[in-house]
């Protein structure tokens, strides 16, 4: 039941229009063939499951269909910030 501000459409829209797409800043390994099963499973399955402020990806499914970044408190569900890809990075999250 969130109200999400799409950084591309610049509008507040109901959660119904969006789909969640998991934790943000998870880079796909450059060399999948060289990884061990443990390393690969770490990439595909393991997440921090962070309690608190959390950067995650959402996609505006029934809108502009673009992916973007959302900083959400996993305790209160408050959305603290939205950003287009590149505006914030794992090295430089706000």
């Amino acid at each position, binding site marked *: *039941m*969130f*109200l999400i501000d799409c950084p591309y459409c610049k509008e507040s829209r109901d959660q119904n229009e969006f*789909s969640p797409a998991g934790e943000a800043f998870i880079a796909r390994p450059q060399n999948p063939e060289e990884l061990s099963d443990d390393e690969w499973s770490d*990439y*595909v*399955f393991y997440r921090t499951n962070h309690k608190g402020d959390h950067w995650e990806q959402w*996609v505006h*499914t*029934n809108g502009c*269909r673009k992916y973007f970044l959302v900083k959400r408190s996993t*305790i*209160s*569900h*408050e*959305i603290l910030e939205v950003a287009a890809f590149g505006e914030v990075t794992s090295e430089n999250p706000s």
Partner: protein
Amino acid sequence: MRLKNHKSDFIDQSEALSFIFNNKSYKGYKGDTLASALIANDVLFFARSFKYGRKRGLMGSGVEEPNALVSLEIGGRYTPNLKATEVMLYDGLSAVSSSNPNSIDFRALIKPLHRFMPAGFYYKTFIKQKVWAMVEDSLRSLAGFSKAPTEKDEDVYDHVFHHTEVLVVGGGVAGITAALEVLNNSKTTRVILVDERAHLGGELFNEFQSDDTAISWHHDNLSKLLEFKNVANSRLKIFSRSTAYAWYDHNYIEVLQTNATGESLISGGTQAARKVLHKIRAKEVILATGAHERPMLFETNDLANIMLSQSVRRYLNEFGVISGKDVVLYGNNDSIYSTAIDINNNEINCKVIDIRPSGGESETVLKAKKLGIEVLQGYAVLKAHGTNLVKGIEVSSVEMQGKKWRLTGPSKRLNCDLLASSGGFNPVVHLDCHCGAKTFFDEDSQAFLPQKVRKNRQVCGSISAIGFWKDVVIDAKNKAQLTLLSLGEIKKSTQDSMSENYLDYYNASQFFVPIEILNRPKVFIDMQNDVTTLDVALAIREGYRSIEHIKRYTAMGFGTDQGKTGNINGIAVAAQFLDVPLSEVGTTTFRPAYTGVDFGAMAGREVGGFFDPQRYTTIHDSHLESGAEFEVVGQWYRPWYYPKSGEDIHQAVNRECLAVRTSLGMMDASTLGKIDVQGKDAREFLSRVYTNAWMKLAPGSCRYGLMCNEKGMIIDDGVSTCINDNHFIMTTTTGVLQAFTLL
């Protein structure tokens, strides 16, 4: 009975209405609820209880009522498990008790066995012994709820979406004041005011008999509200008979409005919606949800005509009805004296039993005494006498020793035919807690109060245990000012102070009762689920400590009333048996929905043909002509098989397969997803999304492929065709198409 000379603003005695309850005809008036009309007709029994089949009467007057569940009408307008206290009367109404009090009942016949049926009885007897499956059906059919509807609902329901700056929940003094304060101090702020009752004013009507300023306040402020409402492009919406039942994240609140009770809504080819589900997004929420009274505890406190004090007062003042002639008020706070004064003013005999010792009485108490109302101070009710209906009570003197009540004297008996009790007030914090807000126990008011500060939300009025209505006005103005500040409508808020000791307006003593009373049998906490104090004691003896576990073991608060009258008492009982302070026990979790919500209202107009779009291919008619059975894939209606007369699915499919092998088959693949892949890396792209090789597929050829995601799960399959080295046409399955295009 209905009082002869009573003037009520709500009852229109010029319009008599006929109705049927449990197969008998009665008459009531426009403005009555089913409950008030039945009190007027001297009907006292409304239900049999869930576990023991005990006859029960009314306890409350509104949403808190645990006993008087009824089902309304029949056929397409049948509605189960409504509270008689919330059913507005209309001409021709027909209702039956969910569990008929007048029928002979199996559970009541096995009365001698009741003391062998404590909490956990069904589990220990049937489930542990592995015979549950054999007895489950017959036991469930005994449960005291209405039968589920069997016919299609003939009503329609609407959904309406709202965006507003301010939502005010509750239309009593606090809600009215807060709404007006916001509207008066801003030119643009939009306000929605919702209230569960038929008339705005909440508990203020109870002051009308004794306080003329209450009447003029109500009149003036309601006219001001209407001035805001009755203009073009009004900033104010008011929804009555509307309950805010759920608060979800980001201030999204759902409100169910009842437009009509059970009367037919089809006339002249149009059909009005019976209920409307309002879906509200608010920037700021002001909760003015009030408080529910909690009853005092004593033995056989479940007899008919043992009610809540504030409810008796409301029936008297709003509807002009009362169900006894010899009334006893019992409680631990001043509110019972106000009820007594109102009853006495109507020339009905009443006395007060106050658990608090004499001395230091407030004005209200002194006024009652001056009117000649008999008052027993420092007395507790041990037991109610009577079979099914209260006929008298046993009382004993009590004393506070340290922090605990103790019985001090021998008991004596008093006669009465109506007992109304008040053990204090429970703030309606339910909605506030839906999104994770906490409550805390306040010693002054002996109540669980809402968390002090929350973003974009204010609380005002008796939800904060503020009792005196003039204090409520000040509090509501203060909170509305904070709301305006948060919205940026004002730069600085004005905060006025309330009277001293505003949190202890009722001078409540702590709401524990002597433990000797709790140790008696049949002291009911939860009327709807027949949970007694001894069930809680047993749960504790068996090792349960957390109130959440005690709740589940005893089923306390599991009924359709969700423990509105019982839960806080249950927590207090647990605290006494555990010998810990109330604050250490805490409350159970409040979850949506606050009251029952009709499935029809949830579905809205999205039923029948509007449930889901149906997509047909261009040759749908030809499939129909060939007698196809259809399967729904995504939203597409695709032919499944074509049975000839007498064929089952397997015979038809076999015949079809044989035809394809020996002559020709044709398949319409137009419902499949089609993705045009172009560019110099088209081959590489296909190789990456499919698991098999695509590098050597020649132009003009096609190949079947499987798609996996990175977790190794198959997500789709399909055939792709090579047009040339840089151009492929990929197909996806019909069902997955929708998900794919939405990515």
